[in-house]
């Protein structure tokens, strides 16, 4: 079984190269290296095993550890030439190919979309869409297994992979039965983008982000997760960093996947609090008494408002911006009093101005018996919500057949991997510290740790900073599959049942 060794990898007998892939790598892997590894690519070929004993041990290990054999493991450096990865573009096909071949968690990805280890309709009839390096878009791609998908991705090397719904029939065969071809199920998705916060964030705008404005995302994730878990009872929620300035939520509960457009719209409507455009004046207008979910959201957001908005964003320091705050307050006398006070001390920080409102309101109220303290309280609640409450791109959630970028693809602009965000460490998640494709590939090369752990070779991703993210993804998927309604029922033909709605 000749493992193809690409011409550029001839001097691979470095010490690290001794523990390499055993004789029976997955079929897809083999195919790719034989047919697709072009000579100029920095692709590591697989090595023949050193000794017979080791080989048999590896084989045994493979039998037990089926889940993991998709990850090619090679201790060989990705290339022998000293390539400066940092200077390569994140959408460089050569880099992307290495990433897809050695780092992308295909098997978990497959199980995540398939909701079961056995191939089923949920994956086979699932639309995937690829954007190629020439910006051409291939829609309605679908695959039966993870290996077939991986093989095709390595052939096409898309810069972007998007995930669509599960259709009634195989998307590739849609033209055979156009009338019966319709989307059937998809994860419930949410998309939040920092550009929607441009009218309230002072630190950055457009595509730029920093740690200060990332706090908006943290707040949004907390609020929406609470709604989805407590109110709607969804359990399998995964937040994914979109690579630059936003996050996506994927809810994989069976009940969420089969929601129709109307019900998706209902959830979106339930969540939507900030309405209208930046020119529309006051953007939060809620009925009183507040709905329990809004009350809970305010409780979550209160401390964030104090720290992240008043202190860090300082949105009303300039007088023209403070005017916007004044417009949201109910009482004209109060507005005038505050305006006079703030004009006297230009550049007064927002935290103090926020305190001023109450202080000045007390004086105004003492003069005017009819002063409506309740209206002021409500206005202040509305302001807190306007500056902290999540702003959703509602159309992503509403439509069953909306495409959304897959986790673990590379953002072409930043080179960052679209990693899942561990909810436990939500506070410390650092979007700017997310591994980039260039760094990951260098990390494989620079890896000096042990090559075998628990009697199996270490995967390439385990050598990199991608490890915690893939670990989290795998845990998420494992728990999700166990919770599938079909999981416990031993079925003869999961393939026929998996995609059907009822």
């Amino acid at each position: 079984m000749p493992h193809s060794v690409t011409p550029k990898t001839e001097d691979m007998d470095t010490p690290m190269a001794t523990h390499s892939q055993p004789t029976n790598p997955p079929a897809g892997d083999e195919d790719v290296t034989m047919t697709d590894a072009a000579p100029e690519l920095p692709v590591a070929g697989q090595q023949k095993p050193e000794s017979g004993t080791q080989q048999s041990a590896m084989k045994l290990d493979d039998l037990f550890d089926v889940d993991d054999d998709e990850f090619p493991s090679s201790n060989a450096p990705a290339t022998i030439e000293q390539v400066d990865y940092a200077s390569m573009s994140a959408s460089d096909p050569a880099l992307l190919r290495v990433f897809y071949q050695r780092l992308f968690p295909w098997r978990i990805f497959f199980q995540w979309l398939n909701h079961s280890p056995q191939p089923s309709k949920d994956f086979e009839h699932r639309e995937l869409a690829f954007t190629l390096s020439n910006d051409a878009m291939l829609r309605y791609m679908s695959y039966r297994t993870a290996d077939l998908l991986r093989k095709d991705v390595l052939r096409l090397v898309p810069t972007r992979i998007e995930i669509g719904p599960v259709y009634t029939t195989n998307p590739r065969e849609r033209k055979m039965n156009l009338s019966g071809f319709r989307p059937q199920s998809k994860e419930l998705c949410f998309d939040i983008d920092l550009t929607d916060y441009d009218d309230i964030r002072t630190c950055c705008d457009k595509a730029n982000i920093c740690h200060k404005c990332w706090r908006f995302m943290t707040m949004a994730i907390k609020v929406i997760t609470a709604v989805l878990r407590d109110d709607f009872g969804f359990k399998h929620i995964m937040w994914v960093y979109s690579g630059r300035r936003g996050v996506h939520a994927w809810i994989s509960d069976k009940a969420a996947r089969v929601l129709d457009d109307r019900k998706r719209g209902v959830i979106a409507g339930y969540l939507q609090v900030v309405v209208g455009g930046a020119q529309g004046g006051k953007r939060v207008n809620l009925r009183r008494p507040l709905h329990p979910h809004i009350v809970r959201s305010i409780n979550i957001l209160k401390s964030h408002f104090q720290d992240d908005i008043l202190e860090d964003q300082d949105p009303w320091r300039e007088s023209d911006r403070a005017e916007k705050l004044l417009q949201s307050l109910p009482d004209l006398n109060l507005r005038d009093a505050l305006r006079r006070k703030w004009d006297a001390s230009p550049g007064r920080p927002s935290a103090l101005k926020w305190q001023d409102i109450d202080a000045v309101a007390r004086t105004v109220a003492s003069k005017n018996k009819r002063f409506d303290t309740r209206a002021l309280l409500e206005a202040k609640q509305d302001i807190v919500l306007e500056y902290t409450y999540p702003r959703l791109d509602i159309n992503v959630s509403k439509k069953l057949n909306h495409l959304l970028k897959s986790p673990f693809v590379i953002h072409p602009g930043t080179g960052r991997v679209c990693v899942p965000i561990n909810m436990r460490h939500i506070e410390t998640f650092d979007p700017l510290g997310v591994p980039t494709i260039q760094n990951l590939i260098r990390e494989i090369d620079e890896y000096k740790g042990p090559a075998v752990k628990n009697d199996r070779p270490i995967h390439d991703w385990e050598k990199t900073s991608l490890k915690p993210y893939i670990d989290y993804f795998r845990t998420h998927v494992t728990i999700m599959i166990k919770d599938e309604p079909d999981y416990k029922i031993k079925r003869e033909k999961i393939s026929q049942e998996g995609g059907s709605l009822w």
Partner: protein
Amino acid sequence: MIRQDFNRIEAKRRHVVDHRKKQFATPTYSDTQYPHRLNFYSTPPTGDIKLEEFEQWAIDRLRVLAELEACSFRNKTPAETAAHMKPLLDKYLPLEANTSASSHLAAQRKKDHYSHFILRLAFSSTKELRQRFARVETMLFRLRFTADDERAAFVSGLDLDWEPVTDEEKQEFAEELTATITVPGSKKQQTIEEASFCKVDWMRVPDLVEGRKVFLRHGMAFVPFKEQQSLVVTEFTAQLERALELTARALPRLDEDDRLTPILNHLSKNFVTPDAGYSGNGAAIEGAEITARNIDNLSQHFPMCMTHLHRTLRRDAHLKHYGRLQYSLFLKGIGLSLDECLTFWRQGFSKITDDTFNKEYRYNIRHVYGDVGGDSNRRSGGYSPYSCQKILTEHAPGPGEAHGCPYRHFNMENLAALLQATGVSDRAVLQGVKEDKEKQKFHLACNRVFEYVHRNEIKRAKDEGVMSANQLETIVHPNEYFKRSYLLKNLNGSSGASSGSGSGSYPPAAPVVGAATTPSQEEEDAAAAGDAGTDADVGGGDVKMEEGS
């Protein structure tokens, strides 16, 4: 490989597939009882009725449904709709309460029950009809449900699988639940102990969830008693939609002897445009009944430009943007209210769905009336009706468009054809129009036709001195044409004349060029080129297309 034979039906499902076995089974129910005024229509009727009853009952119900739908087109509030519908319901589909102890109870309920199922047969054939029928039936149900004081008994008899909220749960979520039953601004608040809630899956009350009117916990919605209407109505719609789907599938196997199918076809056709065919001869005599359904009748008073628009609308069931604009403004000028105007266009555009109409046309019509749009538009009450000058000089009609002035924008052949089609066939008049047109005196041509059409009335008016001279001067505004025509035709009935003048709420005939330019003027339909052949009267090559001065 696990997957081998895809076509094998799973053992568990086998019996479900073969529903033919069930189809001719003897119904186990034979005599339906109607314990409640309201009906979920879950059991089909099995008794015998006369063919006349079959038709009459269906038509009566259809009349109610059509009117109800018209109410929704007119943006009526639920209260207005209820007030509007009450006499109709009492007349066509009365349903008295159990307490009334009326001797007709059974008969009324039977009629309601049977007519519903007859219409189901008539309206299950296409998806559009099904959706529309389900929607209006839901409206009717909601209307009756809100009005019914015996609904509690009805609801309790439904067996809707509602889980009551226990006292422990009430205590646990006291704060949250209180927020959902508190009515803002009301002194007398229901306390949590008094209120009763039921617990259902949130998907069964989408409206309440979307509007954040219920408390949600782990996917269960805590529905307060007063919101249970939403639940019942949603359930009604869901059941009806399912049943219609089944009816549609069973329809091809309808065991029929050629007596019902024509009736059913007739019914479903009528439902498409409930009022389109209606134009009572005597309507105009009663006075200025300016309503959507009366436009056909009133169109005899329209100047040629509007007649042409009206005929085109009736022929194509569509008008392009400037045609709609010109015609809507004219109708607005003759006193057609916004609601009626919306109804008129909705019914006129009979080939499109409600959805398309609401999305693409509704806003523009409301904008014209100043119901929506920018502050200035709303304050000034929308646009003013176009004067002759504006029609003559602005926006010459292109292919497929029917607006403009026929005297100017038609070639002579087409103009003559149009005039003859509307009853102007006198050679001298046609010759005069031709000369006026050649001299570009389009007003004169229009007035010439007016004088010819109303020659008898004008003579009488002059003889009797009913109208002063300045009331008979040259017409320079389409709305003036209508008003004068209407008044002249109704000279003999003084009541008609007075109410007719009252209807003339059109603005002065002054040119209103500036006011009528709208920011929302949409691009012409992309299909313009495709329509070019259908509208032979317009845009002849010999017409000089001038831009507005």
